[in-house]
């Protein structure tokens, strides 16, 4: 009845249950954090703008990104993944999202930043629709918890426009 096996089993089951409950509570506690991040992005230069041999437009830009994402961090946050995407419509596509830059923020101390960067990934269209195209820049973030539910949100910035000619 009270063999070693039984006791070991009971202790283990209890320990795992408690661990699961604590993890769940940690994940739920994230809901009480109300985040108010801010971001601002400027396109400081269009470095090049061409049509690739396969017919797709491709753009190289320089971006000034400043953001304050400190309020996203809670005690259950492992990291925040942040990326900037160009979003626009074309005749063929009702939505195009092209990630231009991304970064991993490991801690709250690094969550307020100002950087100047060229696009890390090619700004490539599906086709040749980018001349004179108006687009939005959206800063997305993805909060990865130490355990539990992941969450994501974004800030949309409007009013960007590509030049009318290749250069």
């Amino acid at each position, binding site marked *: 009845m009270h063999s070693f096996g039984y006791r070991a089993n009971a202790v283990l089951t209890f320990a795992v249950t408690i661990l699961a409950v604590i*993890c769940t509570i940690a994940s739920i506690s994230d809901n009480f954090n109300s985040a108010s991040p801010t971001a601002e992005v400027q396109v400081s230069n269009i470095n090049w703008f061409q049509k690739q041999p396969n017919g797709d437009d491709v753009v190289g830009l320089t971006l000034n990104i400043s953001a304050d994402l400190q309020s996203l961090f809670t005690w259950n946050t492992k990291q925040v993944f942040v990326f900037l995407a160009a979003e626009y419509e074309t005749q063929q596509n009702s939505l195009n999202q092209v990630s231009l830059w991304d970064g991993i923020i490991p801690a709250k101390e690094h969550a307020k930043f100002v950087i100047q960067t060229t696009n890390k990934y090619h700004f490539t269209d599906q086709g040749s629709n980018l001349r004179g195209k108006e687009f939005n820049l959206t800063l*997305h973030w993805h909060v990865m918890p130490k355990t*539990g*539910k992941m969450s994501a949100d974004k800030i949309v910035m409007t009013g960007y426009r590509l030049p009318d000619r290749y250069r």
Partner: protein
Amino acid sequence: MGLFEETMESIKSLPIRDFLTQAINFGMIVVSALMIYRSLMIITGSESPVVVVLSGSMEPGFARGDILLLHMNKDRIRAGDIVVFKVNRREIPIVHRVIQVHERRDTGVVDVLTKGDNNPGDDRPFYAHRQLWLQQNHIVGRAVGFVPYLGWATILLNENPVIKYILIGTLGCVIIFTKD
């Protein structure tokens, strides 16, 4: 007397009712595990509701051995989603992040490009020959939750089949031969 005969003796010496009870208990454990997994499949709408991360390509977000909970709903796939996808020639599903989305106006077909957070380039080298985009049918699910370390057991078992057989054997014996 050899080990085999001893084992047979101990099985014969068990009264038949005890043996049946044990068999039913064993069956109950297996069936309830199966039921839980199937229910999860229905609730999440994904054919594999739980996956174990097998590579370090999403470090430091997801490490090897972490478990992801997947969900598959009607929401369209968008940039930033972490999706689990299978490409035709590969058996093992890959967990990576969507970095490009192009959604057709007329048909609603979504072309998706993925990349691992920790990889230098996008996933086109992993796709089938000449495949440029993933479509909805390649995608098994979208990661919504995360439990660290829990998947290490399965990685150990899969990479060392010997441990697996020893473990299954011992568990089976314990369940059949313990009287309570």
